[in-house]
């Protein structure tokens, strides 16, 4: 059996995922031994779009050219893995996704599109799965080394990676942190994927949601809770959207469709609780 071919491709983002991979130490050498790396822009020249066993993606899609490249990678790769929240959910640059007004915002920052961006053709930022099928996701901002090694090991061996599905709160309790949400701070722990080791909570900093929306989340309940704690709908939506990307846009859309979510007190059933 020949070596597996892998390729790492970078779109719009901070390239944090590549940096984490570069920091994998001895395991990186093992990865190099076991595979043929066809693309890794931060580490090598001569990167190519070619037949791949595994394609690893970072960054969100913000130009027509990236969209084309992404589709090409998909057509060449047996398995595609999205790494980091930009590739997985859209990232911070997708904060305003679905709100409309992208053209206007673009013009304000960059000026007239036609004059500046002829070759790239800018788009509103979207996650990779808005354009192609993604097989596995490694969330994080940036991803966690252990979760990357776990995932790549499984994918190389033909099995599915298994990452934490629970939210940040679980690890937060393992680390015995006092709950900030109970103290009235707008912690997004319950809505955010675990795996970060509750890093910020260990420093008493409320979770901002940088690992992206959890697999299962109860957005209406936390929304209501924060309203009860005195936050405005604008503040809450801004917080939820900052790292929430496309999945959060969907959740918020549903909430807004239900009547009166901006009402200050949420209705509660009779019966006491």
């Amino acid at each position, binding site marked *: 059996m020949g070596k597996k071919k892998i390729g790492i491709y970078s779109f719009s983002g901070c390239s944090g995922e590549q940096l984490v991979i570069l920091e994998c130490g001895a395991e990186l050498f093992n990865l190099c031994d076991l595979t043929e790396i066809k693309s890794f822009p931060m580490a090598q020249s001569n990167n190519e779009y070619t037949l791949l066993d595994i394609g690893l993606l970072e960054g969100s899609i913000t130009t027509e050219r990236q969209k084309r490249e992404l589709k090409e990678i998909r057509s060449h790769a047996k398995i595609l893995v999205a790494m980091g929240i930009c590739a997985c959910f859209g990232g911070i640059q997708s904060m305003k996704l679905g709100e409309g007004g992208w053209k206007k915002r673009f013009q304000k920052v960059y000026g007239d599109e036609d004059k500046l961006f002829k070759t790239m053709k800018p788009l509103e930022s979207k996650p990779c799965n808005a354009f192609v099928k993604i097989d596995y996701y490694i969330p994080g901002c940036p991803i966690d080394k252990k979760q990357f090694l776990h995932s790549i090991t499984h994918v190389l061996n033909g099995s599915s990676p298994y990452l934490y599905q629970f939210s940040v*709160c679980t690890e937060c309790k393992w680390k015995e942190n006092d709950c900030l949400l109970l103290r009235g701070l707008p912690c997004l722990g*319950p809505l955010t994927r675990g795996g970060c080791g509750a890093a910020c909570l260990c420093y008493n900093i409320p979770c901002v949601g940088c690992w992206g929306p959890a697999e299962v989340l109860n957005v209406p309940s936390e929304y209501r809770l924060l309203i009860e704690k005195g936050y405005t709908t604008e503040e809450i939506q801004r917080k939820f959207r900052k790292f929430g990307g496309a999945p959060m846009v969907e959740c918020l859309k549903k909430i807004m469709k239900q009547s009166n979510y901006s009402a200050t007190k949420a209705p509660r059933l009779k019966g006491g609780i």
Partner: protein
Amino acid sequence: MRVLWMKKEDLREFLESSKQFGELWGPVQKGEVYVYDKIDDFSRLILEPKRTLLPVKKLIHPPEFNILRYEGETYKTELENIPRRVVYGVPPCDIHGLLILDDLFRRYYPDPYYITRRERTAILGVSFCTPTEGCLCKSMGTDVVQEGFDLFFSDLKDFYLVWVGSSLGDDMVKVRPDLFNNNITRKHLDKFMECKKERDEKFTKSIDMTVIPDIMELSYDSPVWEEIGERCLECGACTMVCPTCNCYNVVDEPSISGFTGERRRYWDCCIFTEYSLVAGGDNFRATRADRLKLWYTHKLKSFGYSGKPACVGCGRCIDTCPVDINVLSVVRGLLGGKEKEGKS
């Protein structure tokens, strides 16, 4: 059981001497909460019993650890690395929690990781605590404890009554026999009764456990489950902090070469959607309402082979849930909001 008494001021000296039986652990303050920690600096140790964020189960059934490491075809468990510990400051409710875990992990499903840690951990219990908000041990009958510890210190203000609960406890006493006195008199008993009475009057919350198991049985279709299911954030926090929640997940972490790797074990939670998901995509308890109903059935009706409710009344779920779902609020809901907050 042998009962002795000890002067208050001698506790520190005794605990110093107990270090020959293992690392000394006990409650310390961390920000606004208390946690069990290794005691190197004695001034950090809190002598009165406290509701620590995680119960003592964290030392016997840790949140996450490696079960084994493998290399090629051989493997080595991590059992021999488990340290000996002496844990001071464990309140009666937490010891009752351990007794329930003992039933599960020592009797019915012998678990070498649990058993080894349990055997290498000396439990030094303490009461009488001043009940804080949400303490429900009196309702649950877990405010006194007869077994499950090595030594137990009843704090009677001027002195401790010391109950010797195991031969290890006896050995610990024997290291400093000069600190203990076995002449128990009427005066000691009177003081014991007085302190107990004083403590009993301080409980502010109660649950009537003579009826709640039956109410649970009758509440299978109660709207309460839907209601809390809709509110629960599925954060798992209540489960992590509950002394009698015991579920865990096991995951293999092979290295890239595939030749070496480790097997990890970490706490799981039956409120998670994934918990009741099986191969093929079916979910036995697909709604959060169903999963919460299971959780509360275990806590308030019956759990495991003992068939008794597993809530030991520690009050942690009350302190922990961001959306106010806990044994008290659920009971209040099941009783149609009529449950009075008051003395037992």
